[in-house]
């Protein structure tokens, strides 16, 4: 379970998160919606441990373990996975090599045996097939020359391989056509299990037609101002964020 209490954070001295309280029980998928500039991406970066995002107060724990004191790689080993809004291109780094290095780093962190090249390839091929991705993807540089949709699918492929206990999807739907959106949603839904939880950050309700959340939270100006069921997303789609603001 992810538990966030009174979390405040700033970027370049400017307060962005102004007291977030949030619980995502194991096995649940929660959505965070909100207008641009509300702090959605900041929340995801703070949880993943990006430099430059300074926590000024509060706490965040995953299954009782404090996340905020850890290095990014330690958080990943503890089960946190951030699917990036803008996946980074790594020219000169082969995707297969990258995926295997990451997978083995996580396995090492969990005390599991590392996979050799053949064992890895077998796993990777199975996940590629599920995500309807070409094996060529393994041979290319990480995200180099990938279309927007391919980059997002590569994020989901990584998630499927690394099997996190908490996935944070930061606007994974942006730049996806409807077919790619379904594939990505299927990839997330396939991971649903009693020991898996997800935080789906999105601006639009569309993704939530395919990944149906247990709860929807509305983030505005650094605070969660409303929480409801999946119907809240549809309500926002119909009446916009201004109505929430008025209500809050």
């Amino acid at each position: 379970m992810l538990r966030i209490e009174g979390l405040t954070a700033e970027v370049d001295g400017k307060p962005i998160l102004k007291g977030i309280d949030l619980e995502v029980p194991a096995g649940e998928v929660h959505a965070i919606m909100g207008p641009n500039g509300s702090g959605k991406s900041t929340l995801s970066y703070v949880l993943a441990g990006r430099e430059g995002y300074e926590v000024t107060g509060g706490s965040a724990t995953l299954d009782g373990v404090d996340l905020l004191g850890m290095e990014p790689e330690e958080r990943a080993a503890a089960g946190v996975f951030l699917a990036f809004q803008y996946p980074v291109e790594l020219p000169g780094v082969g995707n297969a090599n990258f995926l295997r290095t990451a997978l083995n780093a996580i396995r090492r962190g969990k005390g599991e045996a590392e996979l050799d090249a053949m064992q890895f390839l077998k796993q990777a091929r199975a996940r590629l097939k599920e995500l309807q991705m070409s094996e060529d993807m393994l041979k290319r540089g990480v995200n180099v020359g990938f279309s927007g949709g391919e980059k997002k699918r590569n994020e989901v492929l990584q998630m499927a391989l690394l099997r996190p206990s908490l996935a944070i999807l930061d606007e994974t739907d942006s730049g996806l056509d409807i077919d790619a959106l379904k594939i990505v949603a299927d990839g997330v839904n396939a991971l649903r299990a009693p020991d898996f939880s997800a935080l789906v950050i999105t601006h639009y309700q569309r993704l939530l037609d395919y990944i149906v959340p247990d709860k929807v939270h509305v983030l505005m100006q650094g605070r969660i101002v409303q929480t409801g069921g999946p119907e809240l997303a549809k309500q926002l789609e119909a009446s916009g964020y201004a109505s929430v603001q008025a209500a809050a």
Partner: protein
Amino acid sequence: MNTVVHSGAEGFLHRFEGLRARLPGQRLAWVQALREAAAAQFRAAGFPTRRVEAWKYTDLRPVSDAAFDEALTILGDGDTLPAPRGERRAVFVDGRFREELSQIEGAGFAVGSLAEELPRLEGRLGALARPAEEPLVALNTMLFEDGLVVTVPAGVAGGVLELRSLASRSERPSAFHPRHLIRLEAGASLTIVEEASGPEDTRYLHNPVFEIDLAEGAVLTHARIQREGVKGFQLGTVYARIESGATYDNFTLNAGARLVRNEIHAVLAGPKSACHMNGAQLLRGGQHADTTTVLDHAAPDCASRQTYKTVLQGKSRGVFQGKIHVHQVAQRTDGYQMNQALLLSPDAEIDSKPQLEIYADDVKCSHGATVGALDADQLFYLRARGIPEAKARSILVEAFLQEAIEGVTDETARAALESAVAGWWEKEAA
């Protein structure tokens, strides 16, 4: 017995006076004339100082202030040669050919020691080298004792030849000045994998000069791995003349030495010839590495590619100077030059000086230079996937170098370079 130890140019001139009668070729008038002329040039020029434009960024005082003895040519106890990379190799210890360590039989082409071949090298030795312009080449000409002589006959595919240079352990700094002559006749091909190393606790100077001539359609791959000992100096000069349709493919990895200068003078002398000069410099501590290239496009329809990458740690210093001279006759020249540096420490420094002189009007010639640190976004992406910071950094540095190394098409050469880079990293991580 003279026990006065002279340093600098004077020391070498003094040594020439003492050795003159014993140097190879002392009975050949043409060799004598070459040496005497070179001695006069070196006496006049001395070691270049930073006041000389071509040496603005490299201070040779650590070399010129030192006194060097004649090499004693003794391999230290426990020095063993690693397994050969190909079927044939020529081994030089302190600049002298060592037949008992070499394997050059059945090469299918002529390969041997310059000291032995000297009587048959009139007109060839010194045909490309320019001691009047380059004082270190004058020094080499004055004092060379041996070297490799290779002649691949027309149409022969020579395969892989390893050129191994070792420096022996010594209490007194030694200096050696091998002269290597490589000739590929029309349509011949050869891959030379050259590796120079030495003990970590010995100060020495390795001052090699290559004269390489490639006849029509010949292809030479020249992979150079420089991992001299940390107290060693390497001041090397390569001259290459590339005739029509021929290709010279040079890759130089600088991963050792206290101070290294890798100077290449290449002339695209015939139409449709090509020259690739790529390299990587991996520097740490107080190392100084200087790559200086001078490329003459002296014929039409030629192509040249240069990609140099430098990774700097500690207080190391890197230099890249690249001059491309496109002669008036060299229409439809296709030239490209890129040098990039990755600064991993705030105390490291890179100096970069590209220089294009273009006298033809139908020319495609581009160059660029970048200097930067590791990309924070890339680093975070790797770490967010569970990859520890040190490993993430090494992945990004290797990726940075990859672009230069992947241009090496010969598999033996590329594998040798990749393992040398990996070896550098292992040392770095230790």
